[in-house]
């Protein structure tokens, strides 16, 4: 449990909470502003995507590692937590394959090399 180690007088739960709050502010702000505040630079779709994914990963890590104690708990729990990730990745791969864009529009690394599977007589 992370309450035994103190950083600047507070335990890891407190700092994790602060980080989660700050990143959530950042997440909402990324979508709320159509331009970067104080500039004319538009916040593009790609930038929003990037921010949402990075913030999601940081928040997911904070909640899983510290609030759910995966950081300190025996590794078996981390392995259990990671197991569905395999299925989720397979599902995402399936989405790519079943998408009309899957044949030509997606990058080669996420589609199998179908040509190599063609039977040649």
């Amino acid at each position, binding site marked *: 449990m992370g309450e035994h180690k103190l950083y600047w007088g507070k335990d890891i739960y407190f700092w994790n*909470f602060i980080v*989660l709050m700050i990143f959530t502010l950042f*997440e909402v702000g990324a979508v709320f502003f159509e331009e970067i505040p104080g500039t004319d630079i538009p916040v*593009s779709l790609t930038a*929003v995507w990037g921010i*949402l994914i990075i913030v*999601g990963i940081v928040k997911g890590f904070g909640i899983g590692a510290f*609030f759910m104690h995966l950081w300190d708990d025996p590794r078996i729990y981390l392995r*259990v*937590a990671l197991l569905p990730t395999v299925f989720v990745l397979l599902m995402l791969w399936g989405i790519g394959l079943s998408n009309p864009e899957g044949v030509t529009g997606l990058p080669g690394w996420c589609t199998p090399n179908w040509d190599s599977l063609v039977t040649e007589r």
Partner: protein
Amino acid sequence: MGGGGGSDVKNAVWMRALIMAGIILGVAVVSYVGLGVVVANMKHHTWEEEEIHYDEVKATWQAEVDAGNISSADETNAFYEAKEAAHHHEIEAHLSYLTYRVAGLAVLFVGIIFAAFLSISGILNSSQADEHHDDHHGHDEHEHHGSASPIIFSFGCLLFLLGFPDFADGLHGLMMGSTKGTIGDLAVSMMGLTIVTVGIANWWREDLPFVGYGEQLATSDPFAGQHIRKAGIWVFLMSEVMVFATFFSSYLRMRTEWCTKWAFDDGKCTLDPGENLAMTASDYLRPGGAAGTGDFWTMLPGAVNTFALIISSYTIVLALKIAKSHDYKAPSGFLGSLMPTKKAAIRNYLIITLALGTMFIVLKLVEWSHLIAEGFTIGTEQGSIFYVATGAHGVHVFAGLLVMLYMIFKADTVEWSEENAQGIEYFGLYWHFVDLAWVVIFPAFYLY
């Protein structure tokens, strides 16, 4: 079912459940009368005035068009601008009315369920004779803590879901004023709900006296030496990950084919003549969204809910931390007066968590009512996946709140200690998972 070793819980203690139910019901009724009746009626009056004003301004504009003074296609004249402004105010007044009406009804609905849950379980348990347990079994880590309650509960869920299509039809018929065949339509699901309630009440009866001795340990790989309940909750949570992954992958799969404003602006899709942009929930909620309805206030409920879940994750961690502490020291100042003892601190942190979760449900329903009023209904592809995914998450939050009620009740009676704090820890895992699911749902459905 023995429920493991535990302290003796007198039947009189169950009266506290009824008292708590009464307090919750009282707060819910007062909130409903305040928000859903008094304020909502005032807002309804304003809405009616705005409607009359809009009708008048619209009639004036129409008269000018009919007289040939202005063109109906001209959007720059003062009459048209006045009509649009009046229409905007009318919509604003309608949404404001909906906010208070739905909030009041939601608080009342949640309060009634909370009160029913507490009192039914309380009465069912009061009808049994007191059980006298030996509280000093010694710390036998292998004592039996098995229970039939999960099987009873699961069977109830099975019946409820089997009958759900008819149940939905029956409810719809009732709302439309028809009672024909209603009993038959509702029967299977209601039987399921009754069995679920019995399962929960039995679970409660078994667990309440449990003070921590007898936590069963796994004896074989891969969980050898670990608490079985903890392993069980992790496996359960991972099955839940798959449930939400299914919603999420469905959404992604559908979304790749939608020509949204963002995709259109980025040149990722084109529109055929007469074809409209696909409107997602974020188009209604986000400032700059395609629907043109989004601003700070439409974003606010979702954003507040995100912060509420994170804060509630922290408060339940604080409850666990205090339950596991050897020597509780009350904080100074105002917080100290709220949390003078270890028992009060745990209970009050859990109550704060319950309040934040309830606020989440109420704000979500208010937000749904606004979206539906603006035309974003479940009848569209975009609406279907949005309401199903966010609704499933809301159901998880609500189920968590019912468990939280029990945790608060236990905090107020048997008390949480170093010995039985794992109950808070395991429930906390579920609650953090619900928070984690929102971390994915919120950006995917509300922001993107």
